[in-house]
């Protein structure tokens, strides 16, 4: 029964078994994407002849549709055999953390939102009702132009001063905000972990040098430092990412160094040294994995932070240039029309808040699950 249901409708077996959250999400995703593929069939078919973005969207659509179906089908069958749901993973620290995380409704909501954001980003060519630069004045119901049009069924979030559809621009703009957040934090966490671990483990002169550098970078308000860097170079997306990463890594380095210093004193480290393991091996195989929990938390909260910073740069007109819509610059565009067209500035801002909120929810949930020392009180 469950098997057949999974074959027909993904998420249904999970729903039938009372796993409302997972099943509902799968069902919602699958039906939503299917509707998208059917209603915008022309666009999807046209994508076959389109550019790289189109192909990415096409691939995403196919993979998510297939993936959700397969997951639901397999999970349904597995639970038929074992009589229990999936997730019976290894009981490692991260596995335990995941189990604690799964019980946190708000964090799951955040995770779902993040998934939807990135999915929307990848599927933008199919989702967006208009091209981001579509400005042609055209006739709808007698209006000669759609400049600063209020939200309507045609333009769900209205249009801006150049008659461009805000919803479409938000979708296209998500590429800048979401990609930059992810990449910048990826770079900064890698760099920060590496330098922090070296400083903490080797100590001495290396430690002093690295930590002085950390102090120097942290002696600035981050936005001012960003502006200094960005002012020096032509603002390409590459420069913005590097600048964001460069101003972020010191806090990660400080945290990792603290963790390593604390772990170094513990027995398992002594034991590993007594066994004659090399320093590098002890550091990377034994110490760093133990610092993984806090690191994941810092990274997740850092992504939200970085998205806000990038938006701030764009708002000041210092972000990625060359006509690419980004959420921050869209808010800036709407600033002058606040009185006549509130929607121009409001909706892109909502997108920022929602994305950052989602990352912060997940970050909070991860901290509670992975890093009990810092979590809010001991759970009884």
């Amino acid at each position, binding site marked *: 029964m469950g098997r057949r249901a999974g074959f027909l409708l993904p998420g249904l077996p999970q729903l039938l078994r009372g796993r409302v959250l997972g099943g509902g999400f799968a069902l919602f995703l699958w039906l939503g994407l299917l509707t998208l593929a059917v209603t915008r069939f022309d666009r999807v078919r046209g994508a076959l002849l389109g550019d790289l973005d189109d192909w990415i969207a096409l691939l995403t659509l196919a993979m998510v549709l297939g993936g959700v179906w397969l997951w639901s089908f397999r999970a349904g069958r597995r639970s038929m055999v074992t009589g229990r749901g999936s997730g019976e993973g290894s009981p490692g620290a991260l596995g335990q953390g995941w189990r604690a995380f799964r019980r946190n409704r708000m964090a799951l909501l955040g995770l779902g939102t993040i998934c939807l954001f990135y999915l929307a980003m990848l599927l933008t060519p199919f989702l967006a009702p208009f091209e981001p630069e579509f400005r042609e004045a055209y006739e709808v119901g007698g209006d000669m132009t759609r400049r600063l049009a209020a939200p309507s069924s045609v333009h769900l979030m209205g249009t801006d001063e150049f008659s461009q559809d805000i919803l479409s621009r938000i979708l296209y703009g998500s590429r800048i905000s979401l990609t930059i957040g992810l990449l910048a934090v990826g770079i900064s966490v890698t760099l920060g972990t590496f330098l922090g671990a070296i400083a903490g483990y080797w100590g001495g002169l290396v430690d002093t040098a690295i930590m002085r550098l950390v*102090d120097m970078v942290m*002696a600035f308000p981050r936005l001012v430092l960003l502006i200094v860097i960005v*002012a020096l170079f032509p603002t390409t997306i590459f420069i913005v990412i590097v600048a964001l990463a460069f101003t972020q890594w010191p806090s990660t380095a400080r945290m990792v160094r603290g963790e390593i210093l604390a772990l170094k004193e513990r027995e398992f480290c002594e034991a590993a040294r007594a066994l004659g393991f090399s320093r590098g091996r002890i550091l990377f195989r034994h110490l760093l994995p133990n610092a993984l929990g806090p690191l994941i938390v810092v990274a997740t909260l850092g992504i939200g932070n970085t998205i806000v910073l990038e938006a701030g740069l764009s708002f000041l007109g210092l972000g990625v240039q060359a006509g690419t819509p980004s959420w921050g610059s869209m808010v800036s565009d709407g600033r002058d029309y606040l009185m006549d067209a509130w929607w121009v500035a409001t909706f892109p801002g909502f997108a920022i808040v929602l994305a950052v909120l989602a990352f912060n929810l997940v970050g909070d949930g991860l901290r509670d699950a992975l890093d009990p020392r810092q979590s809010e009180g001991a759970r009884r």
Partner: protein
Amino acid sequence: MLSFSLRRTLLAIPLLLGVATLVFFVLSLAPGDAASIYLRPGMTPETLEHIRRSMGLDDPLLIRYGRWLLAFLQGDFGYSHFYQMPVRDRILAALPNTLILASGALFFAFLIGILVGVLQAVKEGSFLDSVLSGVTLFFYSMPSFWLALMLILFFSLSAMKLWNWPFSFPVSGIQSPGADLLAPWDQFRDRIHHLVLPTLTLTLILAGGVARYVRTSMLDVIRQDYIRTARAKGLPETRVIMKHGLRNGLIPVVTLFGVYFPFLLSGTVLIEYVFAWPGMGQLMVESILRKDLPVVLAGTFLFGGMVVLGNLLADLLYGVVDPRIRQSDG
């Protein structure tokens, strides 16, 4: 403890000089320089060259650095060609504006944040707690410039136009044009009016973070044995929380205060930008973009100094609120 803090502070001076030096070289290497502000249409290259020479910009980099360093160490921050006035005067003109805005916002942010955080901790797990958690996280996640625009939308433009609210607040600058001619009392009122929206924006942004921090800290404290002792003594619940709980719950909040403290001078770039608030944040951004090196360097030194001062202040405050640290040595 105190000697440790002082040593750390003294060590920070060369650090700050290092930072300023770094900024000096980095900005000097960038294309374009301060002379370009004198550039006029139809100006011959010779004239420009002449201007550059008179500004000392065509000397070798190291000579310029030496000159700057020497003057800087003597307390001379140099001359801003863009603003046509000594850097010291320019900064002193911007500082009070930032100070007023940030001190008010910091005060209210900590006041509101602490109250909300304590309330949440006391009512942990309740509906009120969930709602307040959502609200604080919402403000914590919000870009300040967007919040500023939304507040303008609600409390200024819409308030006037749509809803006929009897009040609305000005959205740019520190005073209305011609306010100098008003009577002192009206002038004061006008200034306060201009302060409302920027302060509210900054307060809301900061208060979210403070509340989240205080909640965590108070939750930890409320479970401690000495809280039970205070109750067993027969103290009323408000005194248990506000005296025995809060005094302990605020200890970690001192760190947060040290982190926010530099705002007093550095201001917040985005909020000053949105409200056309002529403060330090605005000044710095403008100077960076105009390559007005002397202002940038002085500002850099000042900002870094505030960070160091914030740390020192946090250390000292720790000693005040936590006897265990006060008496650990010296």
